[in-house]
C-alpha cells in the first residue's frame, strides 16, 4: 500500500465522510474473490475522477474487481506501451492522444469512454484574439506536438477555414510554462488540457477562445478506456467488468460532482483546492460516456477529422480504423 494510491490523509472538509455509502456500496459483494487488475492512468488529470470514484466508491468491487492504480506521468503514449506489453490490464487516456499512435497498430482495444471536455484554447484577455479566426498568422503554444490540445484545435481551425499548418504556427513549450511563453511574447495563444488551462485562466488574465465542449463537440468523448488485446481474447468478462464499473462511476460523478471531486483530492499533488476540483468535475461532461456503436461512430469521426488535418495517413479508412480499435465487450 502506498500513500499515492490510497488516500490516507482525509482532507478536513470530508473528515468522516462515509467512503462506501454509495449507490454501488450496498451491491458490492459480487460472488467470489475479487479479480486483481492493474489500471494505469495519469493521476495529474482531474478529469479522470471517474476512475477514483470507481475505486473509492466501490464500483470496481461491485463488478468483482480489485483494482490497483498505477500512475504514469509523462506523455500518455507510454500508457499504450504498458498495455501493449502487458504491464497493465487497462488504462484511461485521451482519445486525441491515443488515436494517432493506435493507427500504428498497438495490441490495445478501446472498450468504453468516460466523459467529454477538458481541452481549451486560451488567449490573453487583453489581446484582440476573440475567436478562432483571429488566430490567423499567430503562434499557438502547445505542450507537445502530439498533444490532444494541438490535435483538437488543429481540427477546429481547419473547420473555421484556417490551414493549421500554414495559417498558424504551433510551438512547443513545457506544459506549466505555456502561459509564461505567451506572456513573454513567444506565442500569442495557448492550447492544452485541464487542469493547467483551467488554472491559467482562473485569474482572468486569460480568456477561453474555444474548448472541446463547443458546439458540435459538446457531445464528443474526451477520455477513453483501453484494455490490452489479450484481455479481450482471454478474459472478456473482466474487460466488460472494467467498462461497466467505469461507466457507472462516471454516471455517479455526473450526479455527485462534490463527492466525486473528494475521491480525487488525495491523488492531487500538494495544494489542490477542492473547490477547483468540484468546478472541474461539474465542468467535464461525465454524463457523456458512450459505448458500442455510438462510441465507434465518435472514434471514426475523430479519425476522419485527423485525416483532414493530415495527422492521420491519407490511406487510413476511418470506419475500418474504428472497427479495428474498438472491442464491444458489453453486448
Amino acid at each position, binding site marked *: 500500500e*502506498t500513500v*499515492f494510491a490510497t488516500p490516507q490523509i482525509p482532507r478536513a472538509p470530508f473528515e468522516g465522510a462515509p467512503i462506501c455509502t454509495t449507490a454501488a456500496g450496498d451491491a458490492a459483494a459480487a460472488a467470489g474473490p475479487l479479480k486483481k487488475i492493474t489500471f494505469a492512468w495519469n493521476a495529474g488529470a482531474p478529469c479522470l475522477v471517474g476512475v477514483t470514484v470507481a475505486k473509492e466508491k466501490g464500483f470496481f468491487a461491485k463488478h468483482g474487481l480489485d483494482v490497483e492504480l498505477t500512475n504514469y506521468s509523462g506523455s500518455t503514449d507510454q500508457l499504450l506501451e504498458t498495455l501493449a506489453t502487458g504491464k497493465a490490464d487497462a488504462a484511461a487516456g485521451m482519445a486525441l492522444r491515443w488515436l494517432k499512435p493506435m493507427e500504428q497498430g498497438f495490441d490495445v482495444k478501446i472498450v468504453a469512454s468516460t466523459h467529454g471536455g477538458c481541452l481549451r484554447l486560451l488567449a490573453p484577455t487583453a489581446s484582440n484574439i476573440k475567436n478562432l479566426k483571429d488566430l490567423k498568422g499567430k503562434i499557438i503554444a502547445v505542450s507537445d506536438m502530439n498533444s490532444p490540445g494541438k490535435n483538437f484545435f488543429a481540427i477546429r481551425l481547419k473547420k473555421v477555414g484556417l490551414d493549421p499548418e500554414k495559417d498558424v504556427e504551433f510551438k512547443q513549450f513545457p506544459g506549466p510554462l505555456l502561459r509564461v511563453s505567451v506572456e513573454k511574447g513567444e506565442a500569442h495563444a495557448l492550447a492544452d488540457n485541464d487542469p493547467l488551462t483551467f488554472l491559467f485562466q482562473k485569474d482572468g488574465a486569460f480568456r477561453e477562445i474555444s474548448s472541446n465542449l463547443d458546439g458540435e463537440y459538446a457531445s464528443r468523448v474526451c477520455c477513453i478506456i483501453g484494455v490490452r488485446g489479450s484481455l479481450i481474447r482471454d478474459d472478456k468478462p473482466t474487460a466488460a467488468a472494467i467498462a461497466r464499473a467505469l461507466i457507472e462511476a462516471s454516471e455517479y460523478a455526473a450526479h455527485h460532482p462534490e463527492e466525486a471531486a473528494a475521491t480525487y483530492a488525495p491523488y492531487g*499533488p500538494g495544494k489542490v483546492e477542492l473547490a477547483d476540483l468540484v468546478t472541474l468535475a461539474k465542468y467535464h461532461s461525465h454524463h457523456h460516456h458512450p459505448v458500442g456503436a455510438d462510441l465507434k461512430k465518435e472514434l471514426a469521426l475523430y479519425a476522419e477529422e485527423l485525416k483532414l488535418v493530415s495527422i492521420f495517413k491519407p490511406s487510413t479508412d476511418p470506419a475500418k480504423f474504428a472497427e479495428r480499435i474498438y472491442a464491444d465487450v458489453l453486448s
Partner: protein
Amino acid sequence: MSLISIEAASAGAAPTRGLPSRETLTRAALAIAAGAAWIAFAFVTRHWPDAGEWGRGEELAQAAAGFGAALFLAGLLGGLWPRGAERLRRYTPWLLALGLFFILWQATTAKLALLPQPFFPPPHALVEVFVDDWPKLWESVVASLKLELLGFLAGAGAGFVVGVSLGWSRAFGYWVHPAMRLIGPMPSIAWLPIAFFAFPSSYSASIFLIGLTTGFPVAVLTWSGVASVNSAYYDVARTLGASRAFLIFKVAIPAALPHVFVGLFMGLGASFAVLVTAEMMGVKAGLGFYLQWAQGWAAYANMYAALLVMSLMCSGLITLLFRLRDRLLSWQKAEVQW
C-alpha cells in the same frame, strides 16, 4: 590542493600573535551579523504581510528567530568555548549570506511579489510542503533510493567488468567497442520501449535504465584507467612472472582505481538525472515521480522541495562514494574533488 596550500602557506607565514584582537573580533562580528540576518529574516516573515496565501510562515519565523538568536549568542559568548567558535567560524560567512538571501527571497516573492507566481514560491511555501507532505516525500525518498541503489550497483558492476574487459581483450574490444560508441550517447528515453519489452516488469526496466546510464561512464573510465596505467608497472610485474590475471587484478585494476572512481562519480550524477525518466514507468512513489507529478499541477513549491531533497540525496551519496575512495586510495592524494 597544492596550489591552495601554497597560498595558505605564504598567507599564514607571519601570524599575528598577542592580543585576542582582530581574528577574534572578526569571528564574533560575523556570528553576530549572521544571527542578526536570521532574526531580521524571521521578522520580515512574521510582520510584513504576505501578498498572497502561503502556509507555515509562523513556524518558519519561529525557527529562523531561534537559529538567529543562537548564532547571536554564539558570537557574544564565543570566547567561552574557543574550539566550538573556531568551528562555527568556518560557517558564519555562509550563514550570513544565507540569511541575507532568505530575506531577499522572502521580500521578492511573498512580500513584494516581484518574482512571478507560482514559479517562485516563498520560503514558507517550501516549509509547508516539508511539514504537510512529508509522508509522501519520505516515501518517495525511500523508493527512489532503492531504485537508484539497485540500478547504480548493477550498472557500476557491469560497467566495471566491461571496462576491464575492454582494456584487456582485443577481441572483446573489437565486438563491444563499436556497439558502445553507438549505444553510449543515446538518451535514456530511447530505451523505454525496448526496456518495456525486454524486462518482465516495469520496475526491472527502470533499474535497467538507471544501470545503463551509470554503466556507460564507469565502463569508459575503467577502460581508460586500465589503458593508461604506466607501462613501467607492467614491465616490473611481467619480469617478476605475473600471469595475465595478476596483471589485471594486481596491477591494472589498483592502478586504474582513481579513474574508476571518477567514472562512478559521473555515473552517480548521470543516474540521478534519469531517475525522472525511469520513474515515469509505473512506479508508485519516487522523487522523480513526485517532481513530475508536482509539475503537472504547477505545484512549484512541491517541485522545489522534491528537487532539494533529490540533490541533497545525490550529494550525500557522492560524499559516501568519496569517503569510500579516500579509504581505498589512501596511498594517493585525492584526484577528483567533491
